[in-house]
């Protein structure tokens, strides 16, 4: 028997597979396809204090081996999420991670406080890395001091474990990771999308209405692996690794680099059943490489 279980701050996971924020809504649509109880946990769409309408369309563009998105944090606002989305998730035996976004430190703190008050939310994920909004978002994730201040303020108010979701759009990701560790973060999620752009050859204009968008999918996997590898060596926090994971072999590579669990985003769009399929395949892949548990594979590249 291969042991897929893993315990992280606030999260008792039956397996390390977690749909990534923004790629899985609040779970309702995928629940029509399969039993969500199979998953390790789920990360729900980013919440802000007020409803956000998001960016104009087109919001999605394809590129070789990846996609660009510029959704712009569209969400119904934290109150609606608490009243209408979270109660539905109570029926599952599934830890829920709430992704939090905002324009100001106060907004992050307030949204975190309200979400942490909900029974189903087991941990918060601070999205300081969204490249698709004018204010806030990535601006918090590219400066170590700002990231640390935000983390400390949320920690004070939330009373639930806080994972900070790091942006890859920085020159030294280790610096940011260290700063949020010192500020009291319980874990890291990495990576968010890389800032990109596509131009339409006929019109000469950007394909996305927003101009730029966030690159995700298999194209960014080596960037994610590299960053997790670097951070794992220097920082003592558990890492939820993500960026281009498509199958159980990719998961093993992330574990090797230093991730303790993984987020699956874009792959859900290619194959809507990818999460349960990875969970099904993971024991075989671990066994094939001589491991009896997830635990044994974490950080294997560093031994």
């Amino acid at each position: 028997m291969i042991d897929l279980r893993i315990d992280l701050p606030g999260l008792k996971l039956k397996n390390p597979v977690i749909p990534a924020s923004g790629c899985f809504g609040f779970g309702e649509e995928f629940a029509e396809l399969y039993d969500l109880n199979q998953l390790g946990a789920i990360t729900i769409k980013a919440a802000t204090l007020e409803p956000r309408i998001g960016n104009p369309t087109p919001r999605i563009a394809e590129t070789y081996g990846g996609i660009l998105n510029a959704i712009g944090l569209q969400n119904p606002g934290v109150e609606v999420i608490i009243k209408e989305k979270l109660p539905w998730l109570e029926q599952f035996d599934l830890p829920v991670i709430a992704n939090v976004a905002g324009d100001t430190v106060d907004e992050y703190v307030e949204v975190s406080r309200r979400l942490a008050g909900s029974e189903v939310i087991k941990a918060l994920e601070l999205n300081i890395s969204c490249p698709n909004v004018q204010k806030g978002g990535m601006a918090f994730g590219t400066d170590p001091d700002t990231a640390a201040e935000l983390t400390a303020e949320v920690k004070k108010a939330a009373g639930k474990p806080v994972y900070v979701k790091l942006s890859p759009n920085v020159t030294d990701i280790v610096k940011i990771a260290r700063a949020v560790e010192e500020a009291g973060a319980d874990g890291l999620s990495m990576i968010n999308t890389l800032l990109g752009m596509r131009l339409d050859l006929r019109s000469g204009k950007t394909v996305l209405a927003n101009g730029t968008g966030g690159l995700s999918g298999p194209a960014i996997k080596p960037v994610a692996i590299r960053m997790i590898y670097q951070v794992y060596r220097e920082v003592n926090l558990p890492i939820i690794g993500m960026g281009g994971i498509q199958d159980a072999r990719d998961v093993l590579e992330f574990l090797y680099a230093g991730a303790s669990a993984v987020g699956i985003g874009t792959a859900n769009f290619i194959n809507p059943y990818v999460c349960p399929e990875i969970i099904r395949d993971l024991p075989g892949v671990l066994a094939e490489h001589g491991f009896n548990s997830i635990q044994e594979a974490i950080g294997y590249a560093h031994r």
Partner: protein
Amino acid sequence: MKLTEDMLVIKNQELAPGIYELVLRGENVRLMKEAGQFVNVQLEGKGFILRRPFSICEINSPEKEFKIIFRVQGEGTEHLAGIEAGERLNIFGPLGKGFPESALAEGETALLIGGGIGTPPLYELARRLHDRGNRVITVLGFQDRDGVFYEEEFSRYSEVHIATMDGSYGYKGNVLELIEDLGLDFDILYACGPMAMLKAIQEAYGKDKRGYISLEERMACGIGACYGCVCDKEGDSPYQKRVCKEGPVFGLNEVSI
């Protein structure tokens, strides 16, 4: 039961320059309930990531076959044009909400308006409305004579009128001008085609006719989870409707274009 299936390609044939008719066979065909629903087709190779959405054009339940008609538009559809009978394609669907047939009462007349590659989903609809015993009129618009397809097929189930922009076939002008010219009378309209055509239809008939229109938008998940494909709901704050989930078919006045 899984909504994705590796379906067998029965035929893939060019109907008009750059327009292909693709027939697939699989168990999930029996889940296809409404005309106007769509499927998401996975493409192998070339670094393709996103599935490509196509409307269901014809459902042949006894044979477990269905058809899509597509136009070569970019790299993905170019790749699709090269797929041959005997190969397999992974199909996700049926997805979305289609054209409600029950909106049409006994004895009423339906007007189907198709623009270019927006024509395919109306074909299954024409057959169904005809089988219900309703009178069906189809008006199709194309760029030119070369682009015309499915006139004969539509005429099995409906009275067909064709318009081309350059007048090289049928009426010279757009579909709305043709409808006006013929003085067509109808109770309900169903339309699919370019945004400009749908907007013109809203303007012309939004006040005093019932109807349904089918929209397109760039998609990622195809099931309502990513908020990539939103459109504007009339009288509400923007981007509240997902084309893949609440649509692609909407009430004539339900969305602002």
